[in-house]
């Protein structure tokens, strides 16, 4: 489980949030809410360890993530604003490489299956530069299917996606929660997961 206590974070001189505490247990989902600039992305990036908090502690299963370091990275997956896909590579190559970077070897069959489930049938071998914005986002989101991380940190996962893809993401999140995974995310679009209580955290 993920536990955050008395977290404070600022960008430049501007204090984004302070005294932020919450805990996320297996099978729970939490939405971070707040206006533009309220620090949603900064909070998620702090949880990833990109930003060092001014104060407070983030712990994973009782241990400080700064000490766990790579052991924590093995348990989590972050999907940011940027898709982290290369224009020159095909969707298939992109997916296999990003799985490799997160430490798992993905064979071609599984990768193709994941891309097809994301609705990219017939486009697996095209360079991603010819794909549309939404399709690129789908390539990035295909990582959710091939990752065995327990904690998903999703920053605006629904941008550029159509209605069908949004439904698919909701389905993936529901499956992940049923496996006792944890999800923490931000979005400005409505996202509902059937049968799950959605916790929310407001930043102001």
């Amino acid at each position, binding site marked *: 489980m993920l536990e955050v206590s008395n977290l404070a974070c600022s960008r430049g001189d501007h204090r984004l949030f302070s005294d932020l505490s919450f805990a996320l247990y297996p099978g729970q989902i939490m939405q971070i809410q707040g206006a533009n600039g309220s620090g949603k992305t900064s909070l998620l990036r702090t949880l990833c360890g990109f930003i060092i908090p001014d104060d407070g502690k983030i712990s994973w299963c009782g241990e400080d993530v700064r000490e766990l370091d*790579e052991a924590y*990275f093995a348990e*989590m997956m972050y999907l940011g604003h940027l898709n982290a896909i*290369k224009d*020159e*590579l095909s969707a298939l190559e992109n997916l296999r490489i990003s799985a*490799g*970077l*997160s*430490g798992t070897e993905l064979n071609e069959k599984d990768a193709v299956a994941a891309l097809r489930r994301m609705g990219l049938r017939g486009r697996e071998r095209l360079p991603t530069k010819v794909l549309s914005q939404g399709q690129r986002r789908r390539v990035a989101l295909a990582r959710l299917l091939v990752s065995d991380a327990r904690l998903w940190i999703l920053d605006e996962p629904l941008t550029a996606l159509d209605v069908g893809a949004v439904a698919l993401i909701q389905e993936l999140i529901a499956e992940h929660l049923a496996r006792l995974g944890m999800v923490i995310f931000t979005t400005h679009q409505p996202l509902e997961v059937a049968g799950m209580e959605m916790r929310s955290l407001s930043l102001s």
Partner: protein
Amino acid sequence: MKKLSLFSLLMLVVRRDLVLAMRRRADVLTTLIFFVMVVSLFPLGVGPEMGMLRKMAPGVLWVAALLASMLSLGRLFSADYLDGTLEQMLLAPQSLSVLVLGKMASHWMVSGLPLVLMTPVLGLQFDMSIQAIGVLILGLLLGTPILSMVGAIGAALTLGLRGGGVLLSLLVLPLCIPVLIFGTGAVEAVTSGLSVSSHLSLMGALLVLALVFTPWVTAQALRISME
């Protein structure tokens, strides 16, 4: 799912960067063409006096190699930084240092190795002896990886800065002076009939030192730049 060993992670990064370089060939060619152009301008500029050309050849080739490698260093991390791949690399559960080492290795294969391979032809322009060319190539083989590795630290520190390219050269070039001195020194030693082993061993020692320390230092620099 099968876990990736550190070695296969290294190979994955090297292969990825080589594939990307092959699909963006213009970037690779600019470095090589720059090197060839700079070196070829000297005989035209200073005139065809053989003795002088022979004497300045190692220095010219080494300085051109240094500048050419500066040219490509800016791209080492910037593309990955802009499209978000670097974020994912920092979250790699295995070793970031190994990832960085992979990127350094492929950077050398793309921008250092072609220069070394081009050297015999360019050496002939300066009327260098076969022996001198041999030593020059050996020196470059040992030295250009050091340039890639030390340069990577600078590239990581200047990531995302405006005018980072100039700053990068200012940071890295002074650190490359020892490589330049030993590299040219080895060629001068062989042409005056002395042993080259001391120069080349020192260069080898620098290479080992760089191999041990620079990946870790670069990894730390990347973490600072991402904040």
